[in-house]
């Protein structure tokens, strides 16, 4: 079965998503409590095991190629997994598992949970598909699966605000997918292939001027998906309006998948290491504007959304520098960002669960009520601001050094200043939520329930572990970095040296 692991990783959540309505109906008929929740958790755990089973082979330097229907690439659709794919799949499966455990209690007051778990599993299936596929059109289809489920989940609570955010997200994001589709169409017109490896090989022989338009379309379309400034306007609304569990999944996993697609398309497909400097510049703008906007926010979830935009800027900066250290730092930061951003959104959700609002003007002094949650928030805030000994410091340090080594000290200075800004807005959030005067009606707020606390704690432990032992994290991202820089290996593995 191990040789079928790539396809099982996509099928498992897809199968479970179709099964979920039936399980919901059966559990209501038979009166079994929480059958959906346990089933969903079992599925994502199995999913994680499937992804983990691919680790030894891929970290051993192998590229796993799985041919759907037994058709040879470039004719058939295939899944190709190298270090980069696997890193993303690992993040998706891990974050998916933790958010699912978190949803168990967090979503218990909502109705329509059949739909929630179905859509959740569909998003996981879509993300896994984007992460593992070796076919550019497949990538587009899985992106659509992921995004369309996301629109529905943003509007899940059916308030006016969330429906507005969902429609905005849908319109902007559809524009992005149309750009990607148009880019794919142009590429197909140019060389007549949809397989990423085959395209990459054939595009080498096409004149560069013909490739510029599809490349621009891809960068713009994917830029909308990962909310690069100035294409970010949908993201704060969507994250604020979505249930916190969903926002945690989006910020941890969906953003990662978007960046993966960007790296895969720009570096492997187009081999365009030259436009890395453009990505780095975009990253700089994104991190500065994201941090400045975050400073001005009064809602915790909105602040976290802007901070997420800002962190994506760091990843783009690292990856855009194009050096070994830069790409390693960028991917390590991507990994770390998934950890602490998910954790912070979960904490925001815990506050909403207990207090009912994430508006920082109405909160205060919660330190006395939720000491553990407050401590975890401090861990997350320090990690994201790049304070040692947490994981954010390790990856940001690598990006700073990479900036200087690449002869761009200005980039490093801007990144450093943004880090200070990050610390500033998180101190502001900490001060207005957990410190200060406590409003009278908040005096009997209880601590976060344990099932919700567990995933947050696990992520906090990871923050410390990767901060104290950064080498461990670097070992995890090194195969991914090698995969980014070795597109020839990917191509020859998929096409069998043809």
């Amino acid at each position, binding site marked *: 079965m191990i040789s079928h692991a790539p396809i099982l990783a996509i099928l498992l959540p897809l199968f479970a998503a179709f099964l979920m309505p039936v399980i919901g109906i059966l559990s209501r008929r038979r009166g079994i409590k929480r059958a959906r929740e346990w089933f969903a958790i079992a599925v994502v755990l199995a999913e994680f095991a499937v992804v983990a089973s691919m680790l030894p082979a891929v970290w051993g330097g192998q590229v796993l190629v799985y041919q*759907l229907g*037994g058709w040879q690439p470039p004719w058939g659709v295939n899944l190709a997994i190298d270090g980069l794919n696997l890193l993303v799949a690992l993040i998706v499966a891990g974050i998916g598992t933790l958010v699912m455990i978190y949803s168990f209690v967090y979503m218990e007051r909502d109705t329509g949970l059949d739909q929630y778990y179905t859509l959740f599993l569909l998003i996981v299936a879509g993300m896994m598909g984007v992460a593992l596929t070796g076919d550019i059109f497949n990538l587009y289809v899985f992106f659509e699966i992921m995004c369309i489920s996301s629109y529905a989940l943003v509007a899940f609570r059916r308030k006016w605000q969330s429906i507005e955010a969902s429609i905005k997200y849908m319109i902007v994001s559809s524009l992005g997918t149309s750009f990607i589709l148009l880019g794919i169409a142009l590429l197909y017109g140019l060389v007549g292939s949809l397989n990423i490896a085959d395209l990459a090989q054939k595009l080498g022989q096409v004149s560069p001027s013909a490739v510029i338009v599809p490349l621009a379309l891809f960068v713009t379309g994917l830029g909308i998906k990962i909310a690069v400034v100035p294409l970010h306007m949908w993201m704060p609304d969507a994250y604020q309006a979505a249930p916190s569990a969903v926002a945690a999944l989006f910020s941890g996993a969906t953003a990662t998948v978007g960046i993966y697609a960007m790296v895969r398309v720009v570096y492997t497909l187009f081999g365009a290491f030259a436009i890395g400097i453009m990505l780095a510049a975009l990253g700089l703008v994104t991190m500065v504007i994201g941090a400045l906007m975050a400073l001005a926010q009064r809602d915790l979830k909105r602040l976290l959304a802007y901070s997420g935009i800002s962190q994506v800027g760091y990843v783009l900066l690292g990856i855009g520098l194009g050096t070994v250290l830069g790409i390693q730092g960028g991917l390590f930061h991507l990994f770390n960002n998934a950890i602490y951003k998910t954790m912070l959104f979960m904490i925001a959700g815990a506050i909403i669960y207990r207090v009912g609002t994430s508006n920082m003007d109405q909160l205060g002094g919660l330190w006395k009520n939720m000491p553990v949650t407050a401590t975890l928030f401090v861990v997350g805030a320090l990690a994201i601001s790049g304070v040692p000994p947490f994981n954010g410091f390790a990856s940001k340090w690598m990006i700073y050094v990479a900036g200087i080594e690449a002869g761009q000290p200005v980039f490093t200075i801007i990144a450093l200043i943004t880090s200070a800004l990050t610390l500033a807005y998180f101190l502001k959030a900490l001060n207005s939520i957990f410190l200060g005067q406590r409003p009278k009606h908040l005096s009997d707020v209880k601590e976060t329930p344990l099932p919700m606390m567990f995933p947050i704690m696990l992520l906090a432990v990871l923050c410390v572990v990767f901060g104290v032992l950064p080498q461990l994290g670097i070992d995890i991202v090194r195969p991914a970095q090698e995969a980014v820089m070795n597109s020839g290996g990917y191509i020859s593995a998929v096409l069998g040296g043809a």
Partner: protein
Amino acid sequence: MAGMTVIVRTITRLLFPFTFLFGAYIVLHGHLTPGGGFPGGVIIAASVVMLLLAYGIERAETKVSFLQAEVLESIGGLAIVVLGLLSLLLGVAFLQNKFPLGELGQLFSAGNLPLLYLGVGIKVAAGILLIFYAMLFAFRGDEK
């Protein structure tokens, strides 16, 4: 929704079996003729929607309820995935056609393709009906 006049009702009653049969024909001959699961499923859904418009939602729900449509949709989706997984169990790649291929042009031929079309047909028919129900219920303003 109240339904329409007796003329519309009579014509719908006469047309319904033929429309439904035509949809089923398109689905089942998906591997032989133009068409297949998606268009066939749409035609089947359209035949039920026609009943729904002529007789009103209460009568239509006695034929296919929301719950039944929901279950059917899941079954359609599951059928496709199960067929794919079946190939894995037979020791070949996902969705690889391992069933006997039969003779070209026969109804029972082409391995797993007719079964796949059947799954798609069920899924599409139930899905479109569900969308229609959901929009109607949104205006009715009560549960789901």
